[in-house]
């Protein structure tokens, strides 16, 4: 199992909070590939896709933050019209709900980050359809 892990951190919703996190990760020499913020009123959850999730967790914990590693799938999609749609369509046809999804582009590669209830099954389904599901190691630097 080489699924991608996201680092989720609980945070108060206040100015400077994102910068605080990125600073901690930078000083731990951790690359952030992608981040997402989900907030509701006074608090929120920040999710990071990073070069070393375990280490990122430790670094944040050390600064007193509550963190958790969350399973996710990183899928490389063709950077052309309909690329994202194909992934979504594949999951929908197998009745797999998307809890969270977003994408980013790096070095001309389009990466889609998905959170689904059953990552193992979603990975199988996508791989059978010929999608490239990346492991932690295969993530673009």
């Amino acid at each position, binding site marked *: 199992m080489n699924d991608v892990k*996201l680092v*989720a951190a*609980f*945070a*108060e919703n206040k100015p400077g909070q994102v910068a605080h996190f990125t600073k901690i990760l930078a000083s731990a020499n951790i690359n952030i590939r992608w981040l997402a913020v*989900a*907030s*509701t009123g*006074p*608090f*929120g*959850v920040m*999710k990071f896709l990073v070069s070393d999730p375990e280490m990122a967790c430790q670094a944040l914990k050390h600064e*007193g*933050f*509550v*963190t*958790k*590693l*969350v399973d996710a799938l990183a899928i490389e999609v063709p950077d052309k019209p309909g690329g994202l749609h194909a992934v979504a369509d594949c999951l929908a046809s197998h009745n797999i709900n998307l*809890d969270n999804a977003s994408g980013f582009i790096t070095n001309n590669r389009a990466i889609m980050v998905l959170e689904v209830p059953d990552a193992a099954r979603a990975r199988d389904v996508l791989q059978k359809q010929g999608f490239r599901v990346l492991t932690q190691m295969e993530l673009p630097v």
Partner: protein
Amino acid sequence: MFWDQKIETLERAALERLQLKRLQETVRRVAAHVPFYRQKFAELGVKPEDIRSLADLRRLPFTTNADLRDNYPTGLLAVSYDATLRLHTSSGTTGKPKALFFSRQDVDNAAELCARSFVMTGITQKDVFQNMMTYGMFTGALVTHYGAEKIGCLVIPAGPGNSERQLMLMQDFRTTFIHLTPSYALYLATFLEKHGVDPRRDLALRKAFVGAEAYTEETCRKIEEGLGLDVYNSYGLSEMNGPGIAFECVHKQGMHLWEDHFLLEIIDPQTGELLPDGEAGELVMTTLCREAMPLLRYRTRDITSIITKPCSCGRTHRRMNRIAGRSDDMLIVRGVNIYPQQIERVLMAQSGVGRNYLIALEGLDEMTIKVELAEAGFEGQVEQLMKLQNHLTEKLRAEILIKPQVQLLPPGSLPVSEGKAKRVIDNRKM
């Protein structure tokens, strides 16, 4: 195990005869030596010889917090200033403290009751006692210190705080029991966890006496779990010796109150009327053996009830229930009476939240309850946090009858106290 089996198991009729004799003596002494009581007796038209039975207690005047302040510093002394041996104070939120004098006999009696209380829980002279209460003017540490010495325990007068040093002392001297506030106990549990110390494996701790602040069953369980020991609830207040007035026996079904030293009543805090046995109300205590500063019908402002059923340990001294709240801690929010302990009970029973919380009253009667998320309670999703927050809001609404705002915070974001915790901040603009 008994410290003084004869008096602890004295049959009720004999105990009551002893109480009456001591009450009559106390009333005579204060009438003779304390102008404050002499004047009160005159106002009520009561004379010492009118006290013929324990039921006559209700003819005597109450003594309040304010009376202690008004008679500061020496107005309530029943002995000469030279005959006093120790001064303790009880701090208030404003102004001068209350001055509490002990004679040599009072110091010894307070230690005696503490020894009784400790032995009741199974403490022997082999035990090692690390006292994490604040030493100084406060009764909490010194009275238990003397009590444990009376038994013959090794006593480590550590005082509160400085958790690194507490841990070192507990490890090096194989501490078996500790005495501390509930808020510090919770903090210490977190501290040990953070430092990778498993108290069950690495320490010799067996018991904790937790007091000086009211706390709930749920908090008690969290402390037991976090420190790997048995928590014994105790009750004390500086105006009545300090700790060791009432203590749990090994059955832990309420705290035996030492009735050869104190008379207890439960009254309606609003009307002052005596309440029937078993009903919750304000605890009122009269000292029976106090030499330097006897107090009649002292209004403790603590809300509790009396258990009259005999205890299987064989002690005849009746038990009181855990303090449900302080009549002065009571908050009135949107016309509803709320005790902070009700909120604590709900929070401590909820998995996923931590041990520290704060009740903030703001704006026009708005209540916000800030509580830290527990490390283990985080699943990484904002939806889960919203669910937890809504769940807590509902639970709290059911308990306190108004709907508070619940605010989840990262651990460590609320102020930590190593002494008495400040749980309520009232900034209402009304």
